[in-house]
């Protein structure tokens, strides 16, 4: 694509687009550094929204990006040249509520924080409500942007329950908010859902298979190191996100490891299809897309062999 070119020395020059880097993104940055060590010139741009990254990927300005799976599937549905190639992090969403809340029925008519329609957290939450709540019982949805803001709203008692990411839950706990419980862990109820994935421009994938393979391999290796010792994640965070609160990071890292969420190679034909089906059920895409349309799992295979 227009954003990628081969330099005179045979090495590549291309761009990776990331969305507001956080804990889950630092292994990607480490993988990028591996490619740089091999002599490739990799630009990392930070964008504000995943849609912007997808647009850039579709045009070929960016080679690789990683964030919410939903926009990528929407783009693929509109024939954008994009393929999912690896996992960023497993389903880390869990529903947190005030201590009085233990089931869906407790939330009937109570304020329930969600993100906008189409966002994965919203889809997960609504999916759960549809399956768990008794007939005619429904929470009172309140739309609030950002997992972090919802965490604040939960802490201040403005909402009774909301889906949160692990890092926000940890931040919430460490800030001393009390009386909160984990109502349901979606990693257990929706193990096939992979809300955050790595995806790439297909032209890049076909023309520079080797480099793409190196990237995925490096990512798998980083994830492996984190699972072996969570302090590796802490070290990565210190290197790439020096401003983060180190104590929270250590706790969060342990949680990720315990939940086995970091595994770039976790994608399979089955769980990719499961993810696609979930988004189709949530109305983000039409039914009928297959793993073959959306993903190229050969890099994962290449990394593990």
């Amino acid at each position: 694509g227009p954003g990628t070119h081969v330099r005179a020395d045979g090495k590549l020059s291309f761009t990776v687009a990331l969305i507001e880097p956080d804990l889950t993104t630092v292994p990607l940055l480490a993988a990028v550094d591996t490619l740089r060590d091999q002599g490739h010139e990799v630009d990392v741009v930070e964008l504000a929204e995943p849609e912007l990254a997808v647009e850039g990927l579709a045009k070929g300005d960016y080679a690789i990006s990683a964030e919410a799976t939903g926009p990528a599937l929407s783009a693929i549905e509109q024939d954008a040249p994009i393929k999912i190639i690896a996992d960023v992090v497993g389903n880390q969403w869990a529903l947190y509520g005030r201590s009085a809340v233990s089931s869906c029925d407790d939330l009937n008519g109570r304020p329930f924080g969600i993100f906008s329609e189409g966002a994965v957290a919203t889809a997960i939450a609504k999916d759960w409500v549809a399956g768990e709540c008794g007939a005619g019982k429904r929470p009172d949805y309140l739309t609030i942007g950002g997992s972090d803001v919802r965490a604040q709203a939960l802490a201040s008692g403005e909402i009774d329950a909301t889906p949160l990411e692990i890092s926000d839950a940890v931040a919430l706990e460490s800030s001393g908010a009390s009386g909160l419980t984990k109502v349901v862990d979606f990693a257990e109820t929706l193990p096939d859902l992979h809300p955050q994935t790595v995806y790439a421009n297909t032209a890049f994938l076909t023309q520079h298979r080797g480099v793409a393979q190196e990237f995925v391999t490096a990512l798998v290796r980083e994830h492996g190191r984190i699972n072996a010792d969570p302090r590796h994640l802490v070290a990565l965070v210190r290197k790439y996100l020096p401003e983060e609160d180190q104590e929270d990071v250590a706790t969060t890292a342990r949680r990720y490891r315990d939940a086995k969420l970091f595994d770039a190679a976790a994608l399979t034909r089955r769980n990719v299809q499961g993810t696609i089906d979930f988004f189709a059920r949530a109305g983000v895409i039409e039914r009928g897309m297959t793993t073959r349309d959306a993903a190229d799992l050969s890099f994962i295979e290449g990394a593990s062999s």
Partner: protein
Amino acid sequence: MTAHQGDVVTARRRILDANWPYRLLTFVLFAAAWELYARERGGLLLPGFAETVRATSWLLADAELWRALYVSNQALVLGFGLALVVGVPAGIVLGRFRLLERYTDVYLNILLVTPMAAIIPLLVMSVGVGLASRVLLVTVFSVVMVVVNCRTGVRQVDPSLIEMARSFGAGEGRIWTRILLPGALPAIMTGARLGIGRAVTGMVIVELLMVSDGLGGLILRYRGLLQAPQLYGTVVIILAEALLLISLARWGERKLTRWARTQTTGGAR
């Protein structure tokens, strides 16, 4: 020249003198350029003109749009109402008392230049995510325009009118209601007009960034789903609403300040 030719000439002259041919011309050029660019180089986020028009009419038939309009406009109406209720008296006070004005001027400037988007998180943290923070943000966005224009308007009130009222024994209260308020009305209405524009911006931005409901929520959704035509259909509808409100304000302005036009020749043209 025959009478008929004369008719043709006057008809042509009338067309050249009217405004609509030029409006139409730019609209056609604009639409064509948009459509061509989108066809040639369009991406996922850049719909064609025709697609957008279709999506707009589809949206207008959709109950959800009207619900979103209702939700968003609640904040708009309350927030802008609050901006008027707070801004007009504040503007009059600042216009009337120079000393106060000199000491608060720097804060008005700060309010005018502060990127509000950056403080939305702080606002939400302090006021919460309910209607209150949306209303407050709309107010914060629009109140400066109202204050600044009202202040200017009061300053432009002929001081001899105040003196005249005093000579007939009017106190400060009567001077406000009988002289300053009516005298500043044209400027206040201009401020209200600019304020409405800012209020619409505030309404959408708070929904985009924090409380993802209403029109901002629709934008987020269509953007998240990469449905560009619907995304820009929503934007078109927001712009149309802003223009509608502004022309409404202009109409009210003309009604309320008819007298102002007897005072000026209306500029160079």
